[in-house]
């Protein structure tokens, strides 16, 4: 890769929260700009160029127009990095994937639904183009984003955990949600967030997606044993995991 790689940041269906995390790097931003040249970043700059080495993609893919634009980005970039849950795992956009599409459109657009093109399923970026790396989370963790950028500039493989959030809860000596009579999906969710939600006394909702080899059967059994109905269990899993579940079933 050239001495100072060119980077571009693009957004699709999402809340731009991950881009905001990058903009919020504040005192580290100048150091970051010493190692990459940002040529496109709609949220914070007006300039744009199609000449870039690394493309960061936020948001999920929901229509043909998105897919075409993504393919152009893939052609331009050497490395494509999906950032944030919508891009990496479909995110909360894919809650609707198991719902009736006409009802969804009606709920959002009322009687103007026909004016908007939209697939009946929101998809992760790697459902449409090849993705080289993923920065997980809703939103992304700024330090992990920097770790990925540094690794790519140095030509190293980024180190993204493939173990459950339980690891980080143990390291932080958190009282387990299950011991507080609460239920979380931490045992099947990819760590890397430092268990930030549980550290604050809540639960893990699964925003970083399933680990590569989750023991979902065991976790569903456990949730039911702890008194959740099958519907409640499915709800726990559908906040963030819908797209991944479908992709796994298709395999």
């Amino acid at each position, binding site marked *: 890769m050239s001495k100072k790689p060119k980077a571009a940041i693009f957004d699709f269906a999402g809340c731009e929260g991950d881009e905001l995390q990058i903009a919020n790097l504040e005192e580290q931003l100048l*150091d970051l700009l010493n*190692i990459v040249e940002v040529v496109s970043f709609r949220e914070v700059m007006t300039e744009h160029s199609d000449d870039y080495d690394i493309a960061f993609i936020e948001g999920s893919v929901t229509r043909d127009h998105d897919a075409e634009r993504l393919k152009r980005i893939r052609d331009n970039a050497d490395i494509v990095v999906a950032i944030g849950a919508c891009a990496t795992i479909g995110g909360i956009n894919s809650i609707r994937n198991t719902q009736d599409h006409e009802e969804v459109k009606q709920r959002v657009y009322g009687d103007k639904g026909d004016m908007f093109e939209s697939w009946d399923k929101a998809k992760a970026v790697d459902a449409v183009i090849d993705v080289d790396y993923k920065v997980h989370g809703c939103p992304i963790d700024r330090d992990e984003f920097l770790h990925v950028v540094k690794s790519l500039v140095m030509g190293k493989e980024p*180190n993204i955990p493939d*173990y459950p959030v339980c690891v980080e809860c*143990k390291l932080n000596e958190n009282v387990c949600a*299950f011991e507080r009579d609460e239920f979380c999906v931490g045992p099947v969710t990819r760590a890397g967030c430092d268990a930030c939600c549980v550290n604050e006394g809540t639960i893990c909702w699964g925003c970083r997606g399933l680990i590569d080899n989750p023991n979902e059967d065991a976790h569903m059994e456990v949730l039911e044993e702890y008194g959740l109905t099958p519907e409640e269990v499915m709800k726990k899993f559908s906040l963030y995991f819908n797209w991944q579940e479908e992709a796994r079933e298709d395999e």
Partner: protein
Amino acid sequence: MKIIDKEDLDSFVADMIEKGEKEVVGVQEKGHKYAFQELKRAEDLRLDYDVTMLPPKKYFMPQREDLLEYEKDEDLSLEGVNEVVPRIIIGIHPYDLIAIEQMDRVFSDTYEDEHYLKKRKESVLIGVNMQEVSEWSFAASMGTATTDYGYDLMLTDLGDRYAIEIGSSKGSDLLERYCVDLKEAKSEDIESVEREKEKIKESFEKEFEFSPESLPWLMEQGYEKKEFWEEHAEDCYSCGSCNLVCPTCYCFDVQDISDLSLGGGKRTRKWDGCLLESFAVVASGENFREERSERYRHRYMRKGKYLYDMFGDIACVGCGRCSSHCVPDIADPTVVFNELMEEVR
């Protein structure tokens, strides 16, 4: 043996905190559980706890620690980093003291790990005999419900007063420095302490149905029982919780973390666990323990045989943390080892 009134023990602890010559750590409530944490007020100390979430090992081998800093200009310069905070740790149960003894061996046997050893050397350990027993613990089976070694001072609750056994000059120095009102123990105090210790040994609900001394033999026999391990590991999350809360697990992962200039950075280590899927992955991508059941079995092999073969210790002290933290409840060593014994017999 010395005797101290309970209120005098409070002022002993308060004095150590106030003088601040070493950081004072004690068992405190965290949520409805317990944890070793820095003690700011003597009254927060809970010597009547059952078990802490993490063992006190974290003060000698922190969850995450920096090993060295590097800077790369024309040459590479390296500087070792070892953040040592001298500490007085109050309220360690016997099983944890015995686990620390084992860790002392692990970190000095073939290689002197100065990050562990310096922290360990700068610490004073004040033990306490159990007043509450965790429902998951089986320390009596492991011979770790009480101990005659491993502490600098050892406390036993005798109602309105504590008995103090002295284990080292580190301990007696502490008494001299901070404690004003000590009495010599009378023969009935010494008998009371012995009675308390006997009582503790009878307080465990969980137990081994055989002597733990035969664990190395059992594990050798049980290694090939593939179906047994597959069945027991079926609900395993591979979350490593059993490893991470264990007082005798010591595996770590080393990583270099570059700073944003890309010219320098630091080398760090972080706790790792053999139940995690990526634990035995090597550079070529090969995973030496790919199956859940292989990783699950490996932990029991370590506890019951491998570490015994290396150091002569059964590497389980019966604290019950692994089973109490296991959400699908498949990590209870008394269940696994007892059932394996049935299978092998």
